[in-house]
C-alpha cells in the first residue's frame, strides 16, 4: 500500500467523530455461514453498518457469526441487549434491517413481525 494513501486514511480518522464507546448498549450479530451468504447476509450486514454510521450511533457493536443452523430463515441478526431477552430477526433484507435500526436500536421497540425467536 502507498504511504500517501495511509496518510490520507490517518487524516480521515483524526477528523472522525462519534466513535464507538465502550462495550456498547446493543450487540448485533449477523449470521455469515454459507446459507446466510447465499440468502443475502452480506447486503444485510452492509445496510446495518451503513444505517448505524449514518445515524451516528456510537453504542452499538456489530459482529458476525458462522452458520447457526437456521438456514431456512436466513439472513438473520441476533440482538443482545443488557437486561433483555436475546431477539433473533430473520428473513431479512437491507430495507428490513434499516427498519430494525430505526425502530429497535433508536426507538427501543422490538420489530415484532420480523422476530423469528427470542430467548
Amino acid at each position, binding site marked *: *500500500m502507498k504511504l500517501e*494513501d*495511509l*496518510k490520507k*486514511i*490517518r487524516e*480521515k*480518522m483524526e477528523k*472522525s*467523530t*462519534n*466513535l*464507538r464507546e465502550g462495550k456498547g448498549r446493543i450487540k448485533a450479530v449477523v449470521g*455469515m*455461514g*454459507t*446459507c446466510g*451468504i*447465499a440468502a443475502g447476509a*452480506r*447486503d444485510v*450486514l*452492509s445496510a446495518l*453498518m*451503513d444505517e*448505524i*454510521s449514518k445515524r451516528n*450511533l456510537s453504542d*452499538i*457493536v*456489530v*459482529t*458476525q457469526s*458462522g*452458520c*447457526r*443452523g437456521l*438456514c431456512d430463515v436466513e439472513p438473520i441478526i441476533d440482538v443482545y441487549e443488557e437486561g433483555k431477552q436475546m431477539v433473533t430477526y430473520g428473513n431479512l433484507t437491507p430495507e428490513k434491517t434499516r427498519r430494525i435500526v430505526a425502530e429497535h436500536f433508536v426507538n427501543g421497540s422490538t420489530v415484532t413481525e420480523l422476530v423469528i425467536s427470542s430467548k
Partner: protein
Amino acid sequence: MRDMSLHILDIAENSVRAQATKVDILIDEGEISSFMIKDNGKGMDEETLKNALNPFYTTKTERKKKIGLGLPLLKQNVELCDGKFRIESVPGKGTSVKWTVNTSHIDSLPVGNIEETVWILMTMYENCDFSFTHRAGKKEISIESRELKEALGTDELNDPKVSMIVKDYIKEQENIINNQEAL
C-alpha cells in the same frame, strides 16, 4: 452463489473458523481468471480434506442440520465453466483453495461486488488479518488490513465510522481496476 465475490466471502469464512490469523486473497483476471485463498489456520488431515468436498460433511457441530456446502458449491460452479478447482491443506500449517474460470464460458460466474466482500472481511473479522491483491491486465492493487489498522491506530475496524473509512478506501482502489478500459 450468484458470483465469485460471494464464494470468496464464504471460503474465507472457513479460514477464520479454522483459527487463521492471516488470509491472503488473490484475483488475477484475464481470459482465464484465477483465484486463490490461502490461510494459516489449523488445516485438514487427508480424511477431513476428502470429506470436505462432500456436500453432507461438516465438522461444525453447533447446528441442527449437518451439512457443509461451501466448498462443494464452489467446486461445482467452477467445473460447470471448464475451470479447475484445487484444494491443498497441511494440518497445523494451513489451507489453500485455488480455482480458475474460463471467462468466455457462458456459465462462468462474474467476479461481482468484490469491494463489498473485502470490506466485510477486513472490518468484521477482528482476530484475523487479510491481504487482498487484485490484478486485471496491467493494473494491480494490493490492500493489507494490518497496514490499515496501523494507519487508523486501532484494531477495531468494525467501529461503524472506522469501517466506512476502510470501505471508501477499498472502493477507491477497486475503481483503479475497473476504470481500466476507459483509460
